[in-house]
């Protein structure tokens, strides 16, 4: 499944990084601890988090993640959004909490 298809199925907001909407999704990772994501997430995964600062984009780019989903209507900071656009990594959002969005994502790509 591509990120584009995921945003349609789960009705996600696309804050930025539209260039990467064609990215293929290989799995998901859920964590708000950045070193945990650095150590354990893998290429092509969708990262679900409530962290909105710019370092999430640095990690997504270094790890070649497919996209980031911000939960609970968290808004990205401006420099986070700018970097998402520069790197072309989709920065997505949902009103759902972590539990609900993770369950739905899992159902779609398991």
């Amino acid at each position, binding site marked *: 499944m591509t990120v584009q298809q995921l945003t349609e199925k789960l009705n996600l907001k696309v804050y930025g990084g539209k260039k990467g909407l064609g990215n293929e999704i290989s799995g998901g990772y859920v964590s708000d*601890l*950045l070193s945990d994501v650095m150590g354990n997430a893998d290429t092509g995964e969708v990262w679900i988090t409530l*962290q909105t600062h710019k*370092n999430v984009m*640095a990690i997504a780019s270094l790890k070649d993640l497919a996209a980031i989903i911000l939960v609970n209507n968290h808004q990205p900071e401006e420099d986070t959004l700018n970097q998402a656009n520069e790197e072309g990594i989709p920065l997505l959002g949902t009103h759902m909490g972590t539990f609900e969005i993770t369950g739905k994502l899992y159902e779609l790509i398991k």
Partner: protein
Amino acid sequence: MHFEYQIEGGNFTRAGFASSEIKKKLKQLNVDLGIVKRTVVATYEAEVNVVAHAYSGTIYVDFDEEKVVIRLVDEGPGIPDIEQAMKEGFSTASSTVREMGFGAGMGLPNMKKNADDLQVSSEVGKGTTVQITMHYQNPNNK
């Protein structure tokens, strides 16, 4: 090839810049992707540790025929007990740093897991030096 990057303590906005440059260089050298990934994890954690725990630092990167050596030299408080710092979960990160999602005490263990060779030395009150060595060959050596 030799490169140097400056790191400013407390400035998280540029954290990851050097790691990203090193990643690009390794890809240009056609290094196995698994090795590139391990290099990125180890280097990023080392870079962030200077930002989170030290005052300033320099990264010296040397690519030769078969390996890259990444040396991070910082001026900072130093690490009183390196063995304890290497333990997963140990962290002295400030509450501000923790709110950002750093401070899980996983950085040094991540470096250890991913680097071909990791050397940490430190002098309390002066600073810390971290050296990461990655070989371009042998993706199965980890």
